[in-house]
């Protein structure tokens, strides 16, 4: 067994089709797929599982490998992006080389997207399984490449998330490079007054964090510094930063993005002028400096949020408005505070309590609709109350706009340097919203805080610990295994033309003089496995391990079976 010999007709393939509860089974005819799979060439076993990824499912795979002497495993289920590592490790545990495993995506790219076309979707799933089996037949065992890890993390962004993450890593004994582009650490926390839900002083938290970071010898803080280039891969990133006009280079094993977000400047909205009409952030400063003199305050929610340009909810503004309204009432119980809202989102049990308290303390909540937005005029706000069905005119001394949280405009540059995705609103996109919430899809890169999505201090701190924990998994292991999906050269066919060397983005292939003339050689540690060289080689002398020409062509041919 153990994946030694076995190729082509010697292949003994087991196909496992997952119901994923009703996610697949509710739309595709899974028993039919199992029956169909069994009749495919080289398939000696097929079985359905309620959840292939459950203990029961995994045990069934293991038993089937033993009992049926399987030397290839195909799982038709969710997506390799989340579950390939799990099934590969099950194969490994049973002594089967993990690269003799093939994933067929029949959930994310089949049952979930053809929910009203079960029959056609089942046919599509059959095609996909047939293609997967064809590829599996030609899979070869591969040896993973082990790479040393530089035991240092770079944290980009020195706000509450970045500082917390740095401290957590440093306290575990890892070196940290903390990069902050401003002239001081703290980020948005520097501008806040009190923090909900406990009305703690923001200044207390920020000075404690700054103090701890400063004291910690493992954290190297680089202020007024920006990242200008990132190269390398998990365990071995080379980062170039700009500091005082000079380039500095650092080698780090992992990178955490904690670049935060900023508050949208509501220019041109509701008469925003920074004096009589201010943002919540500007109100925080007034409250902190004791400079608030207002008997009537009108707060407007969802300013620049949940509209066409920014369809998302900024999440923190409801709680923030409640907190500030209560502080105003506390300082001056005679004052009147109105909150004009579209929907109040005080998620969780504790936050809903604050909403109730605010109402009890006389904060007036008026619901407006996006179609009839409040109008700020000289000294008054006109608002059509959706619940009363009437227009109200509110005199004000101060209007406070709960402006959206927006991604930094230069996020795109950092995303390109890291080769990681951002969403349509410019926030960084995690590998998986539930399964890998602080990982990027690329190994060794993590994220936390508002860089990912607007979140409050508490969440930023939780995410920072999570990112530190994920990062420490790699650092503490000291070595990482890289996928052996790399190029290889057929030296007989290579003419030494050098096109591969010219086009390789990673300088991972070069032509060398040998006894048999000029021949391209792959530098295995540098090759990232894109396959660009293979698909472009004039002599067709280069192919990829695990994505070979034969495997891919077999997959194409299996789709039609016959040809024209």
């Amino acid at each position: 067994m153990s994946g030694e010999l076995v190729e082509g007709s010697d292949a003994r393939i087991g196909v496992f089709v997952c119901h994923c509860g009703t996610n697949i089974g509710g739309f595709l005819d899974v028993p039919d797929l199992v029956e169909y799979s069994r009749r495919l060439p080289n398939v000696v076993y097929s079985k359905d599982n309620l959840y292939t990824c459950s203990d029961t499912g995994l045990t069934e795979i293991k038993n089937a490998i033993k009992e049926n002497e399987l030397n290839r495993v195909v799982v038709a289920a969710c997506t390799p992006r989340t579950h390939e590592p799990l099934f590969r490790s099950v194969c490994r545990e049973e002594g089967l080389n993990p690269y003799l495993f093939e994933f067929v995506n029949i959930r994310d790219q089949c049952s979930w997207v053809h929910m009203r076309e079960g029959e056609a979707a089942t046919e599509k799933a059959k095609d996909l399984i047939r293609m997967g089996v064809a590829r599996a037949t030609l899979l070869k065992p591969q040896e993973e490449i082990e790479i040393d890890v530089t035991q240092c993390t770079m944290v980009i962004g020195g706000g509450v998330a970045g500082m917390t993450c740095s401290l957590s890593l440093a306290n575990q004994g890892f070196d940290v490079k903390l990069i902050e582009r401003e002239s001081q650490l703290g980020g948005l926390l520097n501008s806040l007054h009190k923090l909900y839900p406990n009305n703690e002083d923001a200044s207390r938290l920020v000075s404690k964090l700054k103090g701890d970071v400063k004291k910690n010898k493992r954290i190297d803080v680089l202020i007024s510094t920006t990242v200008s280039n990132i190269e390398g891969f998990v365990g071995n990133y080379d980062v170039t930063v700009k500091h005082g006009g000079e380039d500095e280079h650092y080698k780090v094993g992992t990178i955490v993005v904690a670049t935060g977000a900023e508050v949208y400047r509501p220019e041109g909205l509701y008469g925003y002028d920074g004096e009589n009409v201010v943002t919540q952030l500007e109100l925080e400063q007034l409250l902190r400096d004791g400079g608030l003199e207002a008997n009537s305050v009108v707060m407007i929610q969802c300013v620049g949020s949940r509209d066409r340009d920014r369809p998302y909810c900024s999440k923190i503004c409801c709680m923030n408005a409640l907190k500030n309204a209560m502080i105003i009432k506390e300082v001056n119980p005679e004052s009147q505070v109105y909150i004009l809202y579209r929907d109040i989102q005080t998620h969780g049990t504790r936050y809903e309590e604050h909403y109730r308290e605010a109402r009890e303390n006389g904060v007036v909540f008026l619901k407006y609709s996006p179609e009839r937005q409040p109008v700020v005029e000289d000294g008054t706000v006109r608002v059509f109350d959706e619940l009363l069905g009437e227009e109200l005119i509110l005199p004000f001394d101060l209007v406070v706009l709960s402006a959206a949280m927006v991604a930094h405009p230069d996020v795109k540059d950092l995303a390109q340097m890291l080769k990681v995705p951002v969403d349509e609103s410019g926030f960084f996109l995690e590998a998986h919203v539930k399964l890998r919430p602080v990982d990027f899809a690329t190994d060794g890169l993590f994220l936390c805080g508002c860089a990912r999505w607007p979140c409050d201090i508490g969440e930023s701190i939780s995410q920072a610990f999570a990112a530190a924990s994920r990062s420490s998994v790699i650092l503490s292991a000291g070595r990482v295994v890289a996928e052996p999906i790399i190029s290889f050269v057929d030296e007989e066919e290579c003419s030494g033309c050098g096109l591969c060397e010219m086009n390789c983005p990673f300088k991972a292939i070069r032509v060398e003089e040998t006894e048999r003339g000029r021949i391209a050689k792959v530098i295995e540690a540098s090759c990232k496995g894109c396959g660009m060289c293979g698909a472009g080689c004039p002599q067709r002398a280069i192919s990829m391990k695990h994505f070979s020409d034969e495997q891919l062509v077999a997959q194409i041919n299996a789709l039609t079976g016959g040809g024209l």
Partner: protein
Amino acid sequence: MNSEEGFEPVILGFLCNWCSYAGADLAGVSRFQYPPNVRVMRVMCSARVDPTFVLEAFTQGLDGVLVFGCHPGDCHYMTGNYQTERRMVMTQKILREVGLSPERLLVDWVSAAEGERFASLVSKFTEKIRELGPLGSEAVFEKEELVRRLKASSDALADDRLRWLVGREKELIEEGNVFGERLPQEEFDHVMLESIRREYEKNRILLSLGDGALTVKEMAGRVGLSTREVLKNLVVMEGEGLVTVSHIEGSSPKYIKTGG
């Protein structure tokens, strides 16, 4: 155009692991519905897609092929998608030479965040192929002829000449030759198109010689070129050692392939 009643196209999709495959998964997570006509193959980078794979798909009778990568500038492998675009544009041009609609091959970009875009591109492309009809319905020749033409174009894409040319496109246009002279895009496109035609014709002629010796006139008849065009090709091909005169029949020389 004989768009058949109830025709359901079969489409092959190549998706890169980092952006477009993730975008396709996101379409699923978001439950964006799209027609069930596309069969996806995951590759690490869209630049893994050899133009001959695309021709293989058409030779297998598939009605359309789509290749999605990361948006320009976002490629996980820095410049992979630029290569993809150049190669696929070249492949579209050769499809036109074959007599197929170049629209049967779609190259586009989908990020990991663009589930909706993925679903929409797939829906539109499926509709496009449905309009075009089954593979070859836009052609004025028989299926056997289509197979021969696809084989010749696949051979042309497997040969070193076009692969070398497209591989150097970026360098020639952006960086220039050894003298620092940059080639204008239009001029490159012209050279590319000429080379595609020449390589394609060459391989058609070679294929026609598969069954034995032929006169220029016979070859012209089989590959649908004028005798003048065939002769022009033969002169070069003879120089390259690909063909040779086997014997003279009457007053006409008969050509055969040389070597393997």
